[in-house]
C-alpha cells in the first residue's frame, strides 16, 4: 500500500490531486471476510451457483468493500479518520474477483479548514471473460469533507 504523505492546511490547494492508492487484488476470501465482519450475507457475493442464477457470471464484491478501501485512502491522505466529516459514494459498476481497487481524489474547495474532495475508486483487472469489460472502470465515485486541524 505504501506510505502516503499527510496533507495539511498549509500544503493544500484546490485542484490538487491526491496520490493514488491501490488495494487488492480482491479475492473471494475478501468477500467472505467482509460478509463475516459486516453481516452482509447476501449469497450473491459468495455462492457461485446463486450468483449465476441471478445472471451474473460469478460472485462480485459488496459495494461497501471498495467503499471501505476508499474511506481508508481518504483517512490516510488527511492524517487519520477522525478528520472526516462527510463521505459519500455512488456505485457505478461491479467489482470482480481479481480486481485491483485504484483510489484517487482531487481537492475541489477549501472553506476555512473544511476541505471538499471528489473521490473515485476504479476497478482494474480482466473481470469475467464473458463480460469483455474494459480493463479499468470507475466502480465508485463521490465526495468527502475533511476538517483539517488548524
Amino acid at each position, binding site marked *: *500500500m505504501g506510505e502516503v504523505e499527510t496533507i495539511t492546511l498549509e500544503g493544500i490547494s484546490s485542484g490538487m490531486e491526491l496520490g493514488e492508492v491501490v*488495494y487488492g487484488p480482491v479475492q473471494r476470501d*475478501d468477500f467472505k*471476510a*467482509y460478509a*463475516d*465482519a*459486516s*453481516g*452482509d*450475507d447476501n449469497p450473491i457475493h459468495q455462492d457461485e451457483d446463486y450468483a449465476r442464477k441471478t445472471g451474473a457470471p460469478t460472485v462480485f464484491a*459488496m*459495494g*461497501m*468493500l471498495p*467503499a*471501505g*478501501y476508499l*474511506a*481508508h485512502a*481518504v*483517512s*490516510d491522505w488527511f492524517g*487519520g*479518520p*477522525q478528520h*472526516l*466529516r*462527510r*463521505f*459519500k*459514494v*455512488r*456505485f457505478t459498476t461491479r467489482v470482480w474477483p481479481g480486481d485491483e481497487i485504484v483510489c484517487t481524489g482531487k481537492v475541489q474547495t477549501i472553506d476555512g479548514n473544511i476541505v471538499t474532495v471528489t473521490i473515485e475508486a476504479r476497478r482494474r483487472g480482466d473481470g469475467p471473460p464473458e463480460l469483455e469489460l474494459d480493463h479499468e472502470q470507475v466502480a465508485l465515485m*463521490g465526495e468527502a469533507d475533511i476538517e483539517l486541524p488548524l
Partner: protein
Amino acid sequence: MAGKELTFDLPVRLEHVQDFARAVGEDNPVFFDIEAAEQQGFPSVVAPPTFTTTQIFQVPRAEREQQLGANLDYGRVLHGEQEFVYKRLPIAGETLKGRMRIAKDFTKEGKRGGAMRFVTYESIFTDEAGDEVLSAYYTLIETAKDVG
C-alpha cells in the same frame, strides 16, 4: 409514510471493530490497539468510517420493510449510494442508538426507459449521553421491470 421510525441499538464491540477494520484493509493501529488509540487521544479503539454500514444488517430487511414499509421488490434492488455525515467516529465499548426512517423516496425515468425508484434510509446515531455521533444515508435503487 411520514413519522414512521424504527429504533435499534448498535453495540460497538472491540472484536467486531477489529474484524471490520481488517476486512476493509485498514492498517492504522487506532482501529486495532487500545494503547495506540489512547496515545492519539481517543478513549479506545476507533471504528472505521464505514463501520455503521453493519447496522443495515443489524435490522433485518423483513423488519425494516414491516416497520417502514417501502414495499421494495428486492429481486431488482441495488445499493445505489451511501453517505455518512460525522460528528465523530464510534468508539469500541459504546452502544449507539439508531433511529431509522425513510428520508427520500422518488421515481425517475431511466436512460433506457422504465422508471427507477430511489429510496433513502436515514439512520441517525446518538451516544449514551444523547449526543449525535453520525448519520448514515443508505440509498437503494429499484430498477425498472423488464427493461428491454
